[in-house]
C-alpha cells in the first residue's frame, strides 16, 4: 500500500524524482506510484510541477510585490469574481483571500518597479470593486517554499563517530 501523504510530501520537495526511485524509497511498486500520481493529478491534488528559481542570481531582472487589496464583495458571488478578474493578468503570480485587515493578497511579478507601479495604477486600482491597494516591494527572499535561499546546508559533523 502506498502512503499518499508521504508521496505528496516527497514530491513537494523534489518533483524531479523519477517513478523508479519513488517506488524504492516509498517501498511500493512502480505501477502503484504511477497510478497514484495519475489519480492525484486527475483529482487536482497535484496542480503542477514547478522549479524554484532564485532569479536574483541570474542576469534577468525581476521585481516582486505583495499588494494588499481591499474590495467590496459582490452579492451572491462574494470575492470570487473580483479574484478572477485579478488573477487573469499573467503578471499576477498568486492571489489569496485572507482574513483580517484586508481581503486579497496579490503577488505580482514585473520586470521593473515602473512596470509594477503601472499595473497597480492602471489596472488594479481602477477596478470598480477595489477600495484600496497597498503595495509592498520585496527586497530580499530569505526562504521560499520551505527552502532557505540565502545559505547552503553544510555538514559540520565529525566524519566518523561511534
Amino acid at each position, binding site marked *: 500500500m502506498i502512503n499518499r501523504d508521504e508521496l505528496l510530501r516527497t514530491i513537494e520537495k523534489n518533483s524531479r524524482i523519477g517513478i523508479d526511485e519513488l517506488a524504492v*524509497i516509498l517501498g511500493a511498486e512502480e505501477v502503484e506510484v504511477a497510478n497514484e500520481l495519475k489519480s492525484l493529478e486527475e483529482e487536482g491534488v497535484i496542480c503542477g510541477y514547478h522549479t524554484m528559481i532564485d532569479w536574483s542570481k541570474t542576469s534577468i531582472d525581476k521585481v516582486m510585490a505583495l499588494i494588499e487589496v481591499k474590495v467590496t464583495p459582490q452579492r451572491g458571488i462574494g470575492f470570487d469574481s473580483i479574484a478572477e478578474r485579478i488573477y487573469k493578468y499573467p503578471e499576477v503570480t498568486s492571489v489569496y483571500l485572507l482574513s483580517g485587515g484586508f481581503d486579497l493578497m496579490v503577488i505580482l511579478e514585473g520586470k521593473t518597479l515602473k512596470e509594477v507601479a503601472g499595473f497597480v495604477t492602471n489596472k488594479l486600482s481602477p477596478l470598480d470593486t477595489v477600495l484600496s491597494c497597498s503595495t509592498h516591494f520585496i527586497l530580499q527572499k530569505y526562504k521560499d517554499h520551505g527552502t532557505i535561499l540565502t545559505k547552503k546546508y553544510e*555538514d559540520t*559533523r565529525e566524519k*566518523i563517530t*561511534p
Partner: protein
Amino acid sequence: MRNPLADTIVDIKPSGIRKFFDVVKTIDGAISLGVGEPDFDTPWHIRDEGIYSLEKGRTFYTSNSGLMELKEEVCNYLKRKHNLDYDPASQVLVTVGGSEAIDLAFRAMINPGDEVLIPQPSYVSYEPCAILAGAKPVIIELKEENEFRLTAEEILEHVTDRTKILVLPFPNNPTGAIMERKDLESIAEVIKEKDIFVLSDEIYSELTYTDKHVSITEIPGMYERTILINGFSKAYAMTGWRLGYACGPKEILEQMTKIHQYAIMCAPTTSQYAAVEALKNGDEDVAMMREQYNQRRRYLLNEFREMRLPCFEPFGAFYIFPSIKRFGMSSDEFATKLLQEEKLAVVPGTAFGDCGEGFIRISYAYSLEDLKKAVERLKRFISRYE
C-alpha cells in the same frame, strides 16, 4: 618517576573508531558514511527554548537528578509511548547523554568480579565501562542468521552464577537490528529465571521502521529488574546537547544519582530546558525525521541488492550492516582500501566487537543526494574487487 597511570585503563584498548577517524582526517575530499549521529539540525523550536533559557538567565545548576519539569515530561513520555509508570521524583535521573547513564548503571550495580553479558556487535562503550566498574565482561556474539537479535539460548550459553547484568542494546548500533515483543518475551523468561538485571539502552527507540519499538520494561516482571536508558540525541537530533536519562527501580536510581552528584553535579541546564520542549512538542519532528531515514534505508537496501552486497533488512536505528566476506578482505582492510581508493569512509564492523569481522557499518544519516554520491564510489570499488 613512578608510573602515573592506572593499569585498568591502560589495559583497555582505544576505540577502533578513533583509529580510523585519525586516518580519515588526513584524506582530502573524503566523503563519509561513518557518522553515528543525525544529519538534521535540532528542530528550531527546541533550540529556541535553549536560547530563551539563556536569555532568562537560567544559567545555574539544576537539582542533581535534573529539572523536575523535565523528569515529569520524561515520565509522561514513557507513559505515552510504552505505558510505563515511573515516579519523577525517585525513579528518573537526567544524565550527560545516554553514555553517562551506562557508566553510572554499571558503577551502581557491579561488585568486583560480577559478570556483565554484552551482546556484540554493539556500541563501543559497554565493555570498557563494565571493566572500569570492576566487572568481567562476557561477550555474546550475535549472529547474522538471527538478524543479529539476541536469543534465550545465547543467554543460557553464557550465563554463570556470577552473571549480574545483561546489556540489551536495541535498536542496535551498528547492525540496525531490533527486538520485537516475541523476542523480548522469550529472553525475559531466562532473565527472570537466572535473576539477572537488564541495562536496556533504548537510545534509538524512536527510529524503528516497521512496528513501534517495544521496551523490555513492558514485559511482565521486567520493570523491576531493568534500567531503561534513553536520551535526546538520536530522536531529536540533539547529540551536541549531551542529554540522556535513566529510569528504573528506586534503590538503583538512588545510588546512580549519588555517583552522578559527585562526578557531574547535574546535566547541562540549557540542554534540560530545550529537552522539555522536545518532549512536549517534538513528536512531529521525530515523525518527519523517521520518514526521511526510512526512505534512505529503502534506497540503500535496494542499491545493495543491486550491487549484490548481502545484508539482512535492518528495521531500526540508522545503520545498515552489510557483509563484505566475499571480497576476501578483513573489515579493516576493506574500509581502509575503500577510503584510500575511493575516498569513502565507512566503519569496519570490528570497531563494534570482534564478531563484527566480515561486516562494515554504513550510516544513512545523510541526505539522499549525499548517499547517491557515496553509493557511486562504493559501486566502483566493489566492481573492481568482484
